[in-house]
């Protein structure tokens, strides 16, 4: 899922500026699961904003709602009735949610309450870790299901580098060396021979180096 984290409340208050009718919008999908932008977090942020503006002596109306997914225009459409009399929308979705709302409500300002961080999973309650950088050409079949792009600090394809020590990465001994993990997993799978295959230089054009990406499936287009 997409992992995001709430911005500092002071930054969000600054973004509100002189706006007076605000809608805080949550998303029921990734950011609910990573505890940053679901209905509960929307209630907390909206309440904190109302209190903050009262302390500042400002009359600001803060409403709240949460939709199924902010990254699909059909769900964003459902905001119409609540959004139409507002002068600012605050999205608690990931960056994609913010942009979907911006596209749908072209004449209304929308600002992000979250910093979108990475694609990952909860390692345990309250701790999230990165697992994929959406490179566009997955190599997990060759690396024992462990991603060297997102989990090796240098994104090496033929690791490890010379700095791996006791299974930890040289940049920080709290980070597992991805290539150590790959070795251990391939050994467990009895597939160490995978490591003898040299992976060629990666074609990064499928990643961000190719500019903004787009996927088209003709069979699905209407």
């Amino acid at each position, binding site marked *: 899922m997409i992992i995001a984290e709430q911005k*500092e409340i002071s930054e969000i208050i600054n973004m509100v500026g002189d706006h007076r009718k605000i809608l805080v919008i949550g998303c029921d999908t990734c950011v609910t699961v990573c505890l940053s932008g679901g209905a509960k977090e929307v209630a907390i942020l909206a309440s904190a904003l109302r*209190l*903050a503006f009262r302390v500042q002596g400002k009359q600001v109306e803060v409403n709240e709602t949460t939709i199924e997914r902010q990254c699909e225009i059909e769900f964003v459409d459902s905001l119409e009735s609540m959004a139409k009399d507002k002068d600012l929308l605050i999205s608690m979705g990931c960056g994609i949610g913010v942009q979907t709302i911006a596209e749908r409500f072209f004449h209304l300002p929308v600002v992000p309450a979250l910093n979108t961080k990475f694609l990952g999973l909860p390692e345990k309650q309250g701790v999230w870790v990165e697992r994929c950088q959406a490179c566009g050409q997955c190599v997990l079949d060759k690396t024992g299901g462990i991603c060297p792009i997102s989990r090796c600090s240098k994104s090496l394809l033929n690791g490890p580098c010379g700095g791996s020590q006791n299974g930890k990465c040289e940049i920080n001994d709290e980070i597992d060396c991805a290539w150590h993990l790959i070795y251990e997993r391939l050994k467990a799978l009895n597939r160490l021979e995978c490591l003898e295959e040299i992976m060629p230089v990666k074609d990064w054009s499928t990643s961000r180096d190719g500019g903004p990406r787009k996927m088209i499936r003709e069979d699905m287009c209407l």
Partner: protein
Amino acid sequence: MDFMPAIVAFCCENSAFRAADTAGAKQEGYPSNIKICRLPCSGKLEINYILRAFEEGADGVFIFACHPDSCKFLKGNVRAQKRVEHTGALLEKIGIKKERLRFFYLSELEWTKFLDLVQQGNESIKGLGPCPTKVKV
């Protein structure tokens, strides 16, 4: 007229809620400005409950949890304390003194301590004056 703060006390029903009940029955100086909110465990406390209490006009919010290692649900009190710390920091950032939010451990039997704590807490909130969220806009 003396300022009488509005105080909301979130009490775990396995400890402080019972202590408050006893304190009330004894009729020994239970402050009338404390509104008790019963929780099935202090771990049920949500950050939003605290914020809403301030929105609804509280000048102070007190949380009562079972003593360390005495939570019926094992870690509810630990979680409540973490949430209170987090909320205190948030309150400071939005201009509400974190001293308006207090966290106490209490057992079911400590009804006199409950009275002492709410009376002391009451005095400290009186000292802070009305919550700045109550200023008319």
